[in-house]
């Protein structure tokens, strides 16, 4: 069983969906996520074990390797696809309360900025690790975030900016949230921002990569 779970983690890391999938080339013909989950279910392995010891283990490696610059955007896309596929299979087999999420997180690219790849990568890593992401999209102002917070219970907010011309808008959003009495922690990320910048604009957390944000959520808000 442990061997099957380890193989499943590797398939998530490599984005291997089933034995027919061509990605990655060096695993052609081998079992993918589909076959391995099928085998694990036949052994009556609980969904929690499959998720935690197989799928999440794989996604954690993806997050860490991306952080270290050893995996890149295409790899994360393939892994996220395999992860979504695995979760779809499990959702058909188990009632939703057995696939419980850790909490909800708002993600948004700030006002003026139309770049969503960084935000989307964070989304994939968080969702792949059991967090529900409310994706507000790009060019998002504080009003939209405040509105969403009124509708639903959120554990943290992640703000993204790619441009030096838009990163200052993070400051305004954080000020607006605090002026409205909102205490939900705000994390920031994106190419031009830094830990020092985060401190200067009173953000609660900064990470240069998605897995840093994931660790923050898992350790502090789970």
């Amino acid at each position: 069983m442990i061997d099957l779970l380890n193989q499943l983690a590797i398939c998530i890391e490599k984005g291997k969906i089933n034995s027919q999938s061509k990605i990655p080339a060096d695993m052609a013909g081998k079992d993918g996520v589909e076959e391995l989950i099928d085998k694990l279910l036949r052994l009556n392995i609980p969904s929690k074990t499959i998720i935690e010891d197989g799928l999440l283990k794989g996604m954690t490696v993806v997050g860490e390797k991306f952080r270290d610059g050893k995996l890149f955007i295409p790899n994360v896309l393939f892994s996220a696809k395999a992860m979504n596929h695995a979760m779809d299979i499990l959702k058909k087999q188990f009632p939703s309360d057995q696939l419980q999420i850790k909490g909800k997180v708002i993600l948004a690219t700030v006002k003026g900025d139309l770049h969503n790849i960084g935000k989307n990568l964070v989304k994939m890593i968080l969702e792949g690790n059991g967090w529900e992401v409310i994706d507000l999209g790009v060019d998002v102002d504080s009003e939209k975030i405040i509105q969403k917070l009124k509708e639903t219970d959120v554990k943290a907010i992640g703000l993204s900016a790619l441009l030096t011309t838009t990163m200052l808008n993070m400051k305004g959003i954080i000020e607006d949230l605090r002026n409205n009495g909102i205490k939900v922690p705000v994390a920031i990320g994106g190419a031009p921002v830094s830990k020092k910048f985060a401190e200067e604009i009173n953000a609660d957390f900064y990470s240069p990569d998605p897995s840093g944000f994931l660790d923050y959520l898992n350790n502090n808000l789970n």
Partner: protein
Amino acid sequence: MNKLFSTIETKRVLVSDGAWGTELIKKGFQSGSCPELWNLEKTEEVFSIANNYFDAGSDIISTNSFGSNRIKLEHFGLADKTYQINKKAAEISKSAAKEKLVMGSVGPTGKFLITGEISEEELRQSFSEQLKGLIDGGVDAILFETFYDLDELNAVIETIRDLSNIPIICSATFNKNSEGEFYTLMGNSIREVYSFLIEKGVDLVGVNCGNGYFDSIEIVKQIKKDFPELKILVQPNAGLPEITSGQLVYSETPEKIIPAIKDFLEMGVSIIGGCCGTTKEHIKIIRELTDKYLANK
């Protein structure tokens, strides 16, 4: 011979410009709106940025058109002005240039072919209108800058080649990983990116943005080692920005970049300037060092 190539042949090293986005902010641009709309609405302000760079000693400058492809302008409800905004961007820089040179700035769309969020046809259309505007506005070359995705680069290069034989400069952005190696966001190494550009027949290659002048030295070294014949443009950021009393401040001040500029000159870089956070003060220093270097050669 084209004016860009003949100028490089005569002068050997050209000094380009510094940042545009951060200069617009200094002039009161409110982030959240469209920076390129200023070409039509605040022409004088954009002209003064261009003019300041020539005053500081630039031989070649770019245009305020980094993000004015159709896809990005669509978001601001300006898609039908794509051609007009880009043509004006070129005209503004050209009017400041007089006999000097202008390269039309073109940045990525921010969309990825690999995710299926955009088709190759849409990409080409989006760039095509921008490029037509820049060419009709009179630019001497096109500068594709801050690219990180070879699929998107492929689309822009093929689009421009269908339109014109104008010289093209392709500049990519790299990140340093935990082992100190450089890769694009999509995972392409320095060697892969520049082999690809050579294969596509690009006239000049470049490296821009990134973490600053000093990281760029290593990238240029690697390009020169693998492809000694390539003509290179280098336009790094002035380090990463920080906030000091509400203002964005960049750590690599004009004085700090001096050793890096000397290295670039020694390595035989053809065009040296700056990206985000660099100012006319950076360009003055680069001009001074370049003149000194050329006088001693």
